[in-house]
């Protein structure tokens, strides 16, 4: 509810806010450097992620009319005639984003739903091919999250092993991390039961425990913090902080602006696939809250 009103005010305040900011940014084309860090393009800060005029175009299938779908003869004629599917749509999710992230940065990404935050993360992780432009990275950035690899019908035990392998661990690493994951998630004897029997909080805790078991050079976190009860939230925030210290660079997407303000030293505001503002968390978040 609070989020909704916040977004409503954002829609209203959109137009007047932009020209003022435009003038300010035009004068200083570079984003404001985080406090305590050298300004950009000074060789002392090592860039870890360079995003160069990135465009991402999604292909979306669906919204098919009932008459179109499922008729194999239609499908055959369409393939033979080499026609595109009428219901295929292209969504231009990220439209020309450029920035440089440095070693030790924790960058929060804010923006309304559908502004391209998650898409941008996936592109940095090298999971979505760019339509134009490029992402350059040092090492392999990883997205925090193995949800897609887990299977609800399987026991927590099997899912832990599966999730660890999906993240690229070796059998030795899996054996080493297994107990740690069970302990951290706090699901105890439920680990023997299928995940479909878990409460939503338990499932979320186990997923977070699995995904955060691996250390990464460049870590991308997409709304992982808002899970579980208060106690687990504290635990996971602490874990994130620890991961941040081990990782070179962290990107964080969250709707909870408080979390971003606490953990990030730089915030990028995405709006309709473009960077609207990039700089110090306080300034950007203040502008974002104002709309």
């Amino acid at each position, binding site marked *: 509810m609070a989020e909704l009103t916040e977004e409503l005010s954002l829609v209203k305040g959109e137009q007047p806010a932009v*020209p003022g900011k435009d003038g300010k940014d035009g004068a200083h084309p570079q984003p404001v450097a985080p406090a305590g860090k050298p300004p950009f393009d000074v060789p002392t800060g090592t860039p870890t992620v360079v995003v160069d005029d990135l465009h991402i175009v999604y*292909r979306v*299938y669906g919204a098919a009319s009932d008459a179109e779908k499922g008729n194999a003869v239609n*499908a055959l004629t369409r393939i033979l005639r080499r026609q595109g599917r009428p219901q295929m749509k292209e969504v231009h999710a990220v439209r020309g984003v450029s920035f440089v992230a440095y070693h030790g940065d924790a960058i929060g990404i804010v923006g309304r739903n559908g502004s391209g935050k998650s898409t941008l993360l996936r592109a940095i992780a090298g999971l979505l091919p760019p339509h134009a432009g490029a992402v*350059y990275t*040092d090492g392999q950035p990883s*997205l925090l999250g193995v949800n897609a690899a887990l299977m609800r019908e399987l026991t927590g035990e099997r899912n832990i092993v599966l999730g660890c*392998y999906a993240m*690229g661990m070796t059998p030795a690493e899996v054996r080493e991390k297994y107990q740690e994951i069970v302990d951290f998630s706090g699901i105890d004897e439920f680990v023997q039961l299928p995940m479909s029997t878990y409460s939503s909080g338990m499932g979320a805790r186990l997923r977070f425990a699995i995904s955060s078991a691996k250390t990464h050079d460049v870590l991308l976190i997409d709304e992982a913090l808002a899970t579980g009860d208060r106690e687990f939230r504290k635990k996971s925030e602490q874990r994130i902080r620890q991961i941040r210290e081990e990782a070179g660079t962290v990107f964080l997407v969250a709707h909870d602006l408080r979390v971003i303000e606490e953990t990030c030293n730089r915030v990028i505001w995405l709006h309709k696939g473009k960077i609207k503002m990039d700089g110090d968390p306080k300034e950007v978040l203040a502008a974002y809250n104002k709309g």
Partner: protein
Amino acid sequence: MSQPESAVADAQAGGRSGQEPLAKLAARYGLRRAIARPRFPAYVRQLWERRHFILTYATSRNVSKYSNSALGQLWQVLTPLLNAAIYYVMFGLILGGRGNIDNYPAFLLIGMFVFTYTQRTVTAGAKSISGNLSLIRALHFPRASLPLAYTIQELQQLAISMGVLLVIVIFTGEPITLFWLMMPLVLLLQTMFNIGAGLVMARLGSSMRDLNQLLPFITRTWLYASGVFFSIQEKVVGTAKLPQWVADTMYYANPAASYIEFMRDILISAHNPPGSVWISCVFWAVFALGFGFWYFWRAEERYGRG
């Protein structure tokens, strides 16, 4: 409407490129493109490093597949058996497809089980990329892991079916010979072919969504062309009075028919396969595996796009 925003973006991009193009900056610090297709040998090595994931994923899918049914894993045996029973009634008894075939139940069962393995792998392969987009968009791994895991999943099922098959074949009165030791070899060759075919189908299925609607037709035509419940030799040369080379081509050019014939040759003592069927078996295995990997790898970086 978004004029002011694009002005901001342009100002930022322009302002920076005035100093140093970002691509150059990235090159100066040795940063690499986030999405780049590794060279082919490196790709195969990465795939080998992911063998535990591939195996676990295949097993997990098998376990979860039947977890909601009361009979559970028993269906892995029941499904091919029920299929074979239907085909036996349809083609063996009603349509009289058995002709002069010796030991028709074994003939039919071997054809069914061997063909089903290839058919299921091809069908699963076509969905392996398009049905796992969320996984591909979330985690990093060589994408060939998915079609490979699907093939291994089918192989695990086949292993059970083959056990049932052997029991039935012995029950029909076939003598156990040393030739039976060659069974794993045929399965290995067929698996090589299936992996290749699954990889090709995975890439096709990732871009051609309509393939899934079309596939049932293709596989059914393939089933009828593979001599699963009739003898190609008998129908083509005996009934249709066509020259012998037509029948030979149907055996050699169709990998499924080749593997079925090879397996029948091993298990049924009275069965007479076309002479050099093993050559086409080896050829299809090597060709499909090599081409499949190469063809799939060529589009590696594009699979996330959908």
